[in-house]
């Protein structure tokens, strides 16, 4: 028997006036899963999360928490806690009182509250800051206090709205690992809303990529990255080169006549013969070969420029049609200079055939 999902959206829709914020979304999130809702601002990911917390009521569909219909349950009765993007720490209360708030509301005994607060303070590494007010905390400390407060009640489902959005870059990376560590230790399901693909990719077990209120693709980070289903997903996550043309397929082989030359790929079965098709290739799946190599998946070009990224360089190569291809090459290799003629080479395996 499959596990009961801790959180389930069933054909959920939400409109604000004339705009459809969420449009017929269905997602199941397993207990203990680290799930990311990823998309640009305005794609409906925050609205979806607010429906899970109970701050918005879906116009259509149901929200189930741990198998029980929670669609009409008010926020204060839901077995869910949320970490707000602004942290929403109570400014008139100390860190300890903020953490204790949910425990007091639950009617816990005084010493039980004290013990739990101390535990959360340790977990979030807030020792020595218990008596501080929120305005006396740094950004990272506020973030940890908000996390501790949301975790204190020990609910099996935690919603995090852009949890790292307000942190600077270095702190963000550290905190990613901290969050993953805490999630593993507690075994609670984390649902993170983010617009940052790196954040989603590095933390989540599964990612739902959203676009205009709908789910574009759900999958593991590897699936989303390596086998994006649509051009939208491919372009939203990481850098990618797109080739358009007319496809001829035979069996599982596909040959695309693109303006850059012939491209061979492994074809999914649904691509019909002689139709327009799109093929995508990640920069790191390409390499730079000496000029003059010919054949399928060998595109002639001239180095336009490159950016040094430490362990690798990103080359922009001007292709025949005038388009710029992005090719990643290890920094250890000798770098062709701008103006030099090269061949952009890649395997059929590296090609992803996109839906549209």
């Amino acid at each position, binding site marked *: 028997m499959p596990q009961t999902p801790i959180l389930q959206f069933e054909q959920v829709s939400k409109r604000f006036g004339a705009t459809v914020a969420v449009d017929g979304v269905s997602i199941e999130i397993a207990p203990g899963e680290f799930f990311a809702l990823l998309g640009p601002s305005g794609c409906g990911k925050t609205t979806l999360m607010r429906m899970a*917390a*109970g*701050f918005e009521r879906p116009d259509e569909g149901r929200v189930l928490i741990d198998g029980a219909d929670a669609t009409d349950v*008010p*926020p*204060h*009765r*839901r077995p*869910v*806690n*949320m970490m*707000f993007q*602004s942290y*929403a*720490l*109570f*400014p*008139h209360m100390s860190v300890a009182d903020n953490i204790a*708030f*949910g425990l007091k*509301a*639950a009617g816990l005994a005084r010493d039980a509250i004290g013990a739990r607060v101390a535990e959360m303070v340790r977990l979030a590494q807030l020792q020595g800051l218990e008596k501080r*007010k*929120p*305005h006396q905390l740094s950004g990272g400390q506020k973030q940890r206090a908000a996390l501790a*407060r*949301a975790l204190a*009640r020990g609910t099996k489902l935690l919603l995090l709205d852009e949890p790292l959005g307000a942190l600077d870059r270095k702190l963000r990376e550290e905190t990613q690992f901290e969050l993953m560590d805490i999630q593993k230790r507690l075994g609670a399901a984390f649902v993170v809303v983010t617009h940052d693909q790196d954040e989603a990719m590095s933390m989540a077990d599964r990612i739902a990529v959203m676009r205009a209120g709908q789910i574009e693709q759900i999958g593991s980070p590897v699936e989303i990255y390596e086998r994006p289903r649509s051009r939208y997903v491919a372009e939203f996550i990481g850098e990618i080169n797109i080739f358009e043309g007319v496809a001829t397929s035979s069996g599982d082989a596909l040959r695309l006549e693109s303006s850059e030359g012939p491209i061979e790929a492994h074809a999914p079965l649904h691509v019909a013969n002689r139709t327009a098709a799109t093929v995508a290739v990640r920069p790191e799946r390409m390499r730079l070969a000496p000029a003059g190599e010919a054949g399928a998946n060998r595109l002639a070009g001239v180095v336009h420029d490159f950016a040094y990224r430490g362990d690798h360089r990103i080359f922009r190569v001007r292709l025949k049609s005038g388009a710029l291809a992005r090719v990643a090459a290890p920094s250890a290799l000798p770098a062709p200079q701008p103006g030099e003629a090269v061949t952009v080479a890649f395997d059929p395996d590296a090609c992803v055939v996109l839906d549209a």
Partner: protein
Amino acid sequence: MRRGALSGGRLWALLVPYGWLALFFLAPLALVAKISLSKSIIAQPPYEPVFNLSDGVGAWLEQAQKFALTAYRGLGDDPLYLESYLSSLAIAGVSTALALVIAYPLALAIARSDPRRRSMLIALAVAPFWTSFLIRVYAWIAILKDEGFLNLALMKIGLIDTPLTIYATNVAVVIGIVYSYLPFVVLPIYNSLEKQDASLREAAADLGAGPLATFWKVTLPLSLPGVIAGALLMFIPAVGEFVIPDLLGGSDTIMIGRTMWNDFFENRDWPAASAGAIVLLALLVGPIVWFERRQSKGQGA
């Protein structure tokens, strides 16, 4: 900010408010203080300064011991002043408390209403100011007197058989003060409620607090600066209120404003009345200083 030589522009910018205060607050205050330290005489004006600038410090000290504090000692000996202060504080206190009870829900309702409608509701809350204050207080006489609208209405629906005596009592004074000062209390409370981050209430709900618990633990404590500001804004002028007790109060309504008026115009004892004003000011400066301290200390509290 570094203290140092002020640039010309900054100096002028500071000079305007300080000049205003010096001219229209400090100078009259000094005048009142001077009168309060003078001797009452039968003349025009009816006081004789004890201090003259030309006398020098030595003469001042001598005079101070002889006469200067006569008016203040008089206040202590006169039970009317003590009673006036206490009664004024009581009436202003009760009125302020009642006004808070009415103003808070009003401000909360406005702050939680549709943002597009808020400015209209605020305009309605201050709409009474568009009519002359005096006329509105007179209107209360028509409502509260024995054969007034209130008694007629209450008798008509059979709640009472004989008219209630409200007009010319302290109750009428309290009603008048609450009515007149209500907008001054609503506005600061509304302001602090409207500024409150809605996500704080969501966070409270998310952590399991119901609407009532959220109000007591989050909304109300965070709006306290507005509540205190509104209360002071009403309490301080209400203590010295003269017109409302004069129009709505009875002969047994004693408020300090009236007592001072009597001393000025009936008894022509300017020093006593001035001393009364100075003592009242001293009484009221306390709460203001306390509030200022609290404001500057408790950032975000």
